[in-house]
C-alpha cells in the first residue's frame, strides 16, 4: 500500500528549522493495521498527514499504490483522498450544521454520487456503526462516542483502501474508547482495509498488528505480530 523512502518534513520557526520528520523509511502492506505511538510533538500526526496527502514532505518519496503523493499536483492528491483515503480525527470534525446522515453523505459528494444513492449509502454506513436511528440528529445532539461513530461511518462509506485515524479515542472516556476501538477492529477485519492509527494510548496500540514508535521525527518498529506469508 505505502512505501516511504527517507521522508523528511521541516518547518521554519522563526530563524530555526524544526525537523518534524527526520527521514522516515516505512513499508505498509495492504490490509495491515499499524499503530504509531510516541510522545506529543515527535511527528506522529505529521507522518499521518503526509500519508493522507494532507501535507507534503520537504523531501523523500511517499509511494501510495504506485503513485508518489509528493509529486502529484494538489488536484490529483485531492482525487486520491476522495476515492481511497478515509480520515478519523480526534475531535471528530463533523460539520456542525449537517445531520449525521448529511455528514456521511459529504464524503460521497466529491465522487459525484447522486443524491438518492448518497442517502442510501449513508444510511447503510450509519447502520453498520449502530446509528441507524440517529440519521437526522445534528452533531450537537449526539454524544462524543456517537459523533465518532458518525465520523467512522463517514470515513468508510466510500469504501477506501486505507483508513487513517488520528487519536480517534483521545476525546472519549474509557468505556467509549473501548467501544470505538472494538468497532474499528471489527470494521478492519470485515472490510480488509489498511488501518493506520496514531495513539498515545498503549492499550489501544497493543491491539494493532504492528506498533511503531515516533521519537524525534524517526520511526522504529516496536511490535510486529503479523503472520509471515506462507
Amino acid at each position, binding site marked *: 500500500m505505502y512505501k516511504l523512502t527517507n521522508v523528511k518534513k521541516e518547518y521554519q520557526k522563526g530563524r530555526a528549522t524544526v525537523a518534524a520528520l527526520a527521514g522516515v523509511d516505512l513499508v505498509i502492506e495492504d490490509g495491515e493495521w499499524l499503530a504509531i505511538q510516541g510522545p506529543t510533538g515527535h511527528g506522529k500526526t505529521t507522518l499521518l498527514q503526509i500519508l493522507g496527502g*494532507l501535507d507534503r514532505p520537504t523531501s523523500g518519496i511517499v509511494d501510495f499504490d504506485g503513485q508518489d503523493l509528493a509529486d502529484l499536483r494538489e488536484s490529483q492528491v*485531492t482525487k486520491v*483522498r476522495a476515492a481511497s483515503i478515509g480520515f478519523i*480525527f480526534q475531535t471528530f*470534525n463533523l*460539520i456542525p450544521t*449537517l445531520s449525521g446522515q*448529511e455528514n456521511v453523505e459529504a464524503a460521497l459528494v*466529491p465522487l459525484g454520487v447522486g443524491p438518492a444513492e448518497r442517502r442510501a449509502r449513508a444510511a447503510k454506513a450509519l447502520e453498520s456503526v449502530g446509528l441507524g436511528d440517529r440519521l437526522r440528529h445534528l452533531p450537537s445532539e449526539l454524544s462524543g462516542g456517537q459523533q465518532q461513530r458518525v465520523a467512522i461511518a463517514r470515513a468508510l462509506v466510500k469504501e477506501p483502501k486505507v483508513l487513517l485515524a488520528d487519536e480517534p479515542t483521545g476525546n472519549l472516556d474509557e468505556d467509549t474508547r473501548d467501544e470505538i476501538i472494538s468497532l474499528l477492529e471489527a470494521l478492519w477485519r470485515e472490510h480488509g482495509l489498511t488501518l493506520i492509527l496514531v495513539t498515545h494510548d498503549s492499550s489501544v496500540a497493543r491491539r494493532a498488528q504492528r506498533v511503531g514508535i515516533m521519537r524525534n521525527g524517526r520511526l522504529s518498529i516496536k511490535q510486529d505480530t503479523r503472520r509471515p506469508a506462507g
Partner: protein
Amino acid sequence: MFFTYLRRELRRRMRQAIFIALGLALGIGLVITVTALSTGVKNAQGTVLHALYGAGTDITVTKAPSSNSGGPFGFRVGGGADNGQRPAAGTTFSRDTLLSRSLGALNSSSVSSVAKQRGVAAAGGALVLTDLSVSGTIPSAASGGGGFGGGGGASNFKTNSFTVNGADLAVGEVGPLSSGKIASGRTFTSSDATSNVAVVDSSYAGQNKLVTGSTITVAGAKFTVIGTVSQPQGGNPAQVYIPLTRAQTLASMKNQVNTIYVAAASAAGIGSVSKSISGVVPGATVTTSSDLASEVTGSLASASSLANNLGKWLAVAVLVAAFLLASLLTMAAVSRRVREFGTLKALGWRSKRIVGQVMGEAIAIGIVGGAVGVALGFAGAALVSRLAPPLSASVGQTTGSATPGGARTFGGGGGFGGPPGGGTGGGAFSRLAANATHTVAVHLTAPVTIGAVVLAVVLAVAGGFIAGSFGGWRAARLRPAAALARVE
C-alpha cells in the same frame, strides 16, 4: 448538498447574515431612491421644457430683435400709417396690434432649410406674439412732455394684452400645441390655414368666458373660437393660437417667423443637428433642451444639483461601505470555519467547490439584501414623491453672444420700457418683457424605473460576489493540514 449546506450555514449565523444584508439593503435602497430622484428631476425639467416648447421639440431657433425695430413709440401700428407725429389732444384712439418685440424675425425659408438638415425629423415655424390693445384719449400737452406718458398718463389709457402663437398647421408635431389636449371643440386642420379661427387656452377661456363659437379680436380682426386646449400643468402657454398665415398677415410679418421648433430624429443627434442649423441660419440662437436645462433656475435646479451631486456620492459612499463590511464579515466567517473547510478538503472536496459554497452563501445574502434594498428604494422614492414641496423653475430667453453688452436674459424691464413721460405707460412693456421669462411650478415625483430595479439586482449580486470572492480566496488558500491543526 449545496443548498442544504448553504441554508443551514446561513441559519447558523443568521444575525451576521441579517446585518450584512441590511447594510447592502441600505446602500442599494439609497441608490434606487437617488436614481428615482434624478429621474424625477429630469422628468420635471422635461415637463418644464415641454410645457414651454411642446412635447416634440428638441431644439428651438430664435433670433435677437434688432435694436431699431418699431417706431418711435416702440411698436408698429398695423393697418394704419405711423408717421411718428403726435395726434391732436383730445383725439380718441384705439390700437390693437400684434407685436413681436422680444424676438427677432427669421425668414420662412429658414424653416425649409432647417427641415432639410440631416438628423431633423420635423421643423415648424411659428410667430410668438403679443396682442396689445391700447385705447384712450390723447391728453393735452400741458399734462406732460412729448409723448403719451406723464403724471396721470396711465389713467387716460386702457391696455389689454394677451399672448398669441401663430402655429404652423402643417407641422403640428412640434411646437407648444403638441403638448396640449383639446378640452372642448376641435383643434386646427390644414383647411384652417387661411381662416380666422382660433384655439384658446382653457384657463384663459375660463377667465374671459370664452367657449367654442365665441368671437375674439386679434389685431382688430374677429376670430371664431373653434376649441379650447389644456396645456400641461405648470406651463406658461400662449393664450390664443391662430394659424401662422393669419398671424403673419396681422403682424405685418409676411413670410416671416420668429421661432423655429425642431424635432431631432434621435436624442444622440441633437448636438450635431444644432450645429448644422447654426450653419444654415446664421446669427440665430440655437437652443437645445439641454441648454435650456442648464438655464433652469429656481428650486428645481437646486433639487437637480442635490440629486446629482450630494445624492449620488452619498449613495456611492454608503454602497462601498456596505460592500466592504460584507467582505470583511465574510472573511471573518471563513476564518471561523477553517477546521470545517480543512475537514472537507480531507474528505476530498476540491478548493473550487469550497469556494463555490462560500460564494453561494455570500450571494444569497446579497440577493436578500437586494430584495430588501428594492423595497427600501421604493419606499424612499414614494416618500420623496409624497413629501417633496412643489418646485419652481425659471427659464429665460437668452440672446446670442453677439448682443451688444453681452448675452442677456430677457427679464422684467429688460430694456424695453421707455422713460416716464417719454413713452407709453411702462405697464404694457414690462408685461411684454416679463412674458419672455417663464416661471413654472412642477411637482417633483421620484419614479422607480425598471432600470433602477435591474441596477439594484446587479448591485446585490455584485455585492455578494465581491464579499464571496474575498472569503473564497481565503478558503482556497487553506492547506488542509494547517486548517486541521487550528484549535477552535
